[in-house]
């Protein structure tokens, strides 16, 4: 009880909070740095014995010498390791992008179904959510790959869906547009349409500000772009020709073939993530208090206006942050592709390239750097979006 006038009595240095703070920080930094240095020096000396140079990225320009099952860009085994890395990266982007789009659509549908006043519909959604949230994604992925897509019949006896879409154990063949000579021009027209749409949006906004009645800006944007695109499609001589797959011997020819690995990965990711997105959507919609809906009805807004102007903006504020983290999860989870043989970033770089070159440090730096910058970039964008939404709100 000696420090009643603590401010007047200077405590001894070993009880001074500031000095203790500095000492403990220095200690912690020294310990962490020391451990890091210890590991690092072990690593360097170990690597010296293995390779002539401890760390070097020059091997990336050497010939890869292995094939990759599917690729968005042109690739062959004569290309470099770096090219192979990019192929894996693009495959990751492809499956992540498609997965995010489809999972969002499915998740919103199931989340809204969960809130339905219809007992059966809401039960179906609840059962879906409870089943797929509680099964490990890896089990789901391997199940799709081994127990569904691998079990499809051989090409000769493939299931044929209208389209025609061929389902076989070689993958799924779908009709696909083949670009013709005018495709490039059409793309330019499309870009022009988007620019025109932006102008329309700007003018409508200005008019909305003047009159105080905000028109359906997004709708008009879509209408403009679609109209320009439609005109371009009609005027230009067929920018795309539809090529349909057909059976030829032991394989399908033409169209686009989605490999069974890709389909298994996509289905697994979509079904798993949709269950989580559904919960996010449900929580978001429920977070808007009932009074808001009642108040807007009392003000004379229609049901559509209530949803668009009252419920949705407020629900979105709750939905966006967890939704973004689900998107990130999906992207990171796509690295499980290695279990089912889809050549994504991790499978190509962390497995094939690493095994061939033995360059663990370099490859892991590149892989982790890629995933890390992806997730940091996303959280940066999300924070910006969050700020904007908040400004709009209050």
């Amino acid at each position, binding site marked *: 009880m000696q420090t009643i006038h603590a401010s007047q009595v200077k405590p001894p240095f070993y009880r001074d909070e500031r000095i203790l703070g500095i000492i403990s920080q220095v200690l*912690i930094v020294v310990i962490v740095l020391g451990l890091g240095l210890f*590991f690092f020096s072990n690593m360097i000396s170990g690597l010296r014995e293995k390779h002539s140079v401890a760390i070097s990225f020059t091997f990336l320009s050497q010939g890869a010498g292995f094939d990759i099952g599917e690729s968005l860009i042109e690739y062959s085994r004569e290309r470099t390791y770096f090219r192979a890395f990019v192929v894996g990266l693009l495959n990751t982007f492809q499956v992540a992008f498609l997965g995010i789009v489809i999972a969002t659509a499915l998740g919103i549908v199931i989340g809204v179904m969960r809130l339905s*006043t219809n007992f059966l519909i809401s039960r179906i959604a609840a059962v879906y959510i409870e089943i797929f949230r509680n099964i490990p994604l890896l*089990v789901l992925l391997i199940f799709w790959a081994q*127990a569904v897509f691998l079990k499809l019949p051989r090409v000769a006896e493939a299931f044929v869906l209208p389209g025609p879409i061929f389902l076989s154990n070689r993958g799924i063949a779908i009709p696909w547009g083949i670009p013709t000579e005018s495709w490039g021009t059409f793309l330019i027209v499309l870009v022009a349409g988007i620019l025109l749409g932006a102008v329309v949006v700007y003018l409508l906004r200005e008019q909305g500000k003047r009159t105080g009645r905000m028109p359906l800006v997004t709708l008009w944007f879509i209408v403009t772009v679609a109209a320009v695109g439609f005109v371009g499609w009609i005027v230009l001589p067929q920018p795309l020709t539809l090529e349909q797959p057909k059976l030829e011997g032991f394989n399908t020819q033409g169209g686009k073939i989605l490999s069974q690995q890709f389909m298994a990965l996509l289905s697994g990711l979509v079904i798993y993530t949709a269950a989580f997105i559904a919960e996010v959507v449900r929580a978001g919609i429920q977070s808007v208090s009932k009074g808001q809906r009642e108040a807007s009805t009392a003000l004379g807004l229609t049901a559509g206006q209530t949803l668009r102007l009252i419920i949705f903006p407020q629900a979105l504020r709750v939905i966006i942050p967890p939704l973004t983290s689900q998107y990130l999860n999906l992207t990171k989870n796509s690295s499980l592709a290695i279990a089912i043989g889809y050549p994504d970033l991790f499978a190509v770089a962390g497995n094939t390239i690493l095994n061939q070159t033995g360059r663990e440090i370099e490859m892991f730096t590149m892989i982790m750097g890629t995933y890390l910058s992806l997730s940091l970039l996303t959280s940066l964008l999300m924070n910006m979006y969050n700020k904007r939404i908040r400004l709009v709100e209050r």
Partner: protein
Amino acid sequence: MTTAAGTPSDRSVLPITERYPLVGWLRRNLFSDVFNSLLTLAALAFIIVIARIFLRWVFFTAEWGVIPANFNLLMRGQYPAAEAWRLWLVIYLLGAVVGICWKLIVGQFSGAARVLIAIPFVLMLIPFFSMGSRLNLLITAVASGAGFFIAGYLPIQRRGRAAAYFLIAYLVVMLVLLRGLPGEEGPMPPVQPILWGGLLLSLLLAFFGITLSFPLGVLLALGRQSKLPAVRIMSVIYIEFIRGVPLISLLFMGQVMLQLFLPDGFPLVDRVLRALVAITLFSAAYTAENVRGGLQSIPRGQYEAAQAVGLSAYQSTIHIIMPQALRAVIPVLVGQFISLFKDTTLVALVGIFDLLGIARTIISNPDWLGTQQEVFIVVAVLFWIFSYTMSYASRRLERRLGVGER
């Protein structure tokens, strides 16, 4: 309508939806208008189609022979059959410890306790179990009952602390039983962890992953909130780095690169242990973020009040802040633990035979070609049961602690 019809008690004049509660319920929930009725019919059709496909597969198409034939493998992997009694002993003791702790912490034999004691009996109904296993489950149930009963007579003052000691003692005994004693000829020859497998390993990885990552996560959360910049920055870097990379890359790193970081001649750490370290380090970063959410929900007044009554920083954290912060994030933490449990399946990709790893070896066995659907459905159902139980229990606990009501 005769004279008696005027009184409300006369059921015959009530609308049909009130006269028969079921009809009223159906009207309100399924057939409120035309659109809703159509939806109901569509949903019914959907359910019937799915149920038909599924039931037909379960009872006619599926060949379940693969499951009983590999049941022991799925449950305990390569753990030697001669030593299986040790696993049962671990389970008996688990039953006993659960009984003891329930008596010490909760006290009475309430609703959830009935569910717990029912578990062994429900498991006995599983068709794949042998008679011996059923007997062992019965012993487990008896052990937990005995634990509950005996704990009531123990002269214990500080019950919570005693329960913690029992748990720690159980952990030690469990590890010794699993790992065995040195000496091949002894009563309990050692069993290398790489031989542990199947459901046993999945549960062990999840259990130790949770118990080890939780304190680490709490420390990291406190570090991130710390006033000391060096501590804060390092915590932030750690958390953001780990959360930015997929778990599989950490697991691979643990298997491929760990030797690189250690000096030459350093004894190689066991594969399973390396995977456990990766899972723990991974999960700790997520736990830290969840706990931080709880810490941020504590009003400043709590810190100031604790300081005002003369508690040290350490005391106020332990006695005032943490209990409130953790209670606020129980649902999130349990969600995190469930995802850790699900994530343990990833060890199957680095050559460890957990439940999923074993399943993959079974379907690649030529004797069981083409049984992927049966094996993976059983694996999925097993994982589902454990995850769902955890999430159900968390919802119960949440209600009991009144999270969000205070």
